[in-house]
């Protein structure tokens, strides 16, 4: 199984075939799992490019996420325990308290995984204290919050303040996304950055880490 083929399977959203192809690359060809990940990431980069140029839309992004999920079922065990795996930057993702939307959050999670971040997904409707506890426990460098409801955007401030109270705010970057938000509002609410969608979200997370 060559790397170009793996990249192609992601670009063409072949969610039914990807797991078998990754398995072959790991077990038969004995390829380095991180080289496989790079091939998959190339595919996701192209999916992101197609999304930004409106060749692909949300349903294709969701499918790309599904394709990566299938690939990770095989790849994750192969990556586990390796040195490269231990050194990945940890990102906590979740939807804020009171909000049960998860399409954007799930897409971001998959795209972060394919960019070699360690993703800690706390799910939906998550209390600020749960986030604080997880930051303490995992030493995550980034918290990414999703809020699709106007009614729940103030939860961003609640999380920001809870992190401050716990003395963790300087140690962690806070990025947010969701329909009612923009960069100005996000910063007013206490976040460090904002992204309109998952593709931009990964880019912004890389930027805030580097800064």
């Amino acid at each position, binding site marked *: 199984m060559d790397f170009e083929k793996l990249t192609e399977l992601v670009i063409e*959203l072949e*969610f*039914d075939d990807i797991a078998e192809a990754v398995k072959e690359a790991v077990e038969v060809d004995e390829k380095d799992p991180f080289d496989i990940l790079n091939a998959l990431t190339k595919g996701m980069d192209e999916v992101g490019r197609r999304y930004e140029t*409106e060749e692909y*839309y*949300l*349903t*294709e992004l*969701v*499918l790309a*996420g*599904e394709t990566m999920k299938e690939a990770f079922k095989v790849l994750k065990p192969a990556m586990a325990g390796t040195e490269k795996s231990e050194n990945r930057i940890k990102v906590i993702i979740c939807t804020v308290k009171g909000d*049960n939307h998860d*399409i954007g959050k799930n897409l971001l999670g998959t795209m972060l995984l394919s960019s070699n971040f360690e993703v800690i997904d706390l799910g939906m409707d998550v209390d600020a204290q749960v986030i604080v506890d997880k930051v303490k426990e995992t030493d995550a460098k980034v918290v990414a919050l999703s809020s699709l*409801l*106007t*009614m729940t955007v103030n939860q961003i401030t609640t999380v920001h303040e809870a992190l401050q109270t716990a003395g963790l705010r300087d140690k962690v970057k806070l990025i947010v996304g969701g*329909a*009612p938000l*923009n960069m100005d509002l996000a910063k007013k609410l206490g976040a460090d950055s904002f992204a*309109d*969608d998952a593709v931009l979200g990964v880019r912004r997370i890389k930027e805030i880490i580097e800064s």
Partner: protein
Amino acid sequence: MNCRERILAVLNLEEPDRVPCHTILIDANNVDKILGKPQITDFDTFEEVKRDNPDNWVKEMSALVESVETSVFSRMVEAAIEIGLDCMQVGFVPVEFIDDPNEERNLLKDPFGRIWEARDNEGNFNPYYLYGTTNSIEKWKEVKENLKGPMTEKYTKFVKKFYRRINKKHKDKIFVAVTNDLAGVFESASQGMGMAFYSRMLHKDPNLIKEVHEVIAQFTKDCYMSYMDAGAELFIESGDLAYKTGPMMSPKKFYEVLLPAYKMITDAVHERGGKIVLHTDGRVTQLLDFVVDCGFDGLHSLEPTAGVDLAFVKKKVGDKLCLMGNIDVAHILVDATKEEVYDAVKYAIKTGGPGGSFVVSAANMHPGVNVPNLRWMVEATKEFGTYPLNL
């Protein structure tokens, strides 16, 4: 002109005496602020039924849903009259309670396979979508049979009573439109199946998705025809085809898998002399031709915070569609000053109003909308919306 004549004029792409004003709903907490809180809330009733009838509360509550919804929508129309709107829409939400002993939340299910939580909005039920369960072909077959048979029979009967009761009480003071808010064709399909399964099937078997849309459209059409039997003339089809940065799928796919379903509904409504508008949030700019080609008479939301440029939309389809909305619910109707609300309404009327075929309306609605801001929106429409416009 009365409210009905004003609304029908703009839907016929004519200039009325004044720009009409509308919202897609008023949340029950705000209805309470406008009309005063009832002594017994929905949640009081719910708790009482659960307490008094622990073994059979689901059946009893599900039977009560019909009268609760009629009363909730009737109060909403009363509140709309009180603040001076020209048009308010009502529409039965087909849900039933579920008894799950392992679940602390109050859960509801609908005929499309969606699970909802009945959230407490200051004592009022606020249905909140959690997830879809129609995630296999076998489950879709069950949903299809149920929709085509018992659900159609149940709801076509019920909606007649529902609309007749509400319209009879309020029709002299406001134009009562019908909506399938929370139960629109596209959202019921994609949420019922869950976005992941929906996307997989769209890629693998687009004909299945086309069928799902058409079966739900047939159910919708049958319900709409019953509403028309009871006197309804205007329908607002709930769509949500777009999100903040663009359409959910490519316009080409929308043409392929959704247009036939929408045409089934719009043709049936037009055949009986009715009008039908599509409501969809998000950045819909790429879908304007699609909305026209589906046969809709109007487009609602035109959400400024999703980057919809009203001037562009007016120029592109203003001679084909009645445009409704454009007043933002993230800031303008939540925490903006009176001056900001007036400026937003003035801009909307100046941009969308020339030649008629425009309705000032909140782009969406949620419990955080502020009642004084809603009143300012109505006042400003009445102050600046009289034809000939002078802005």
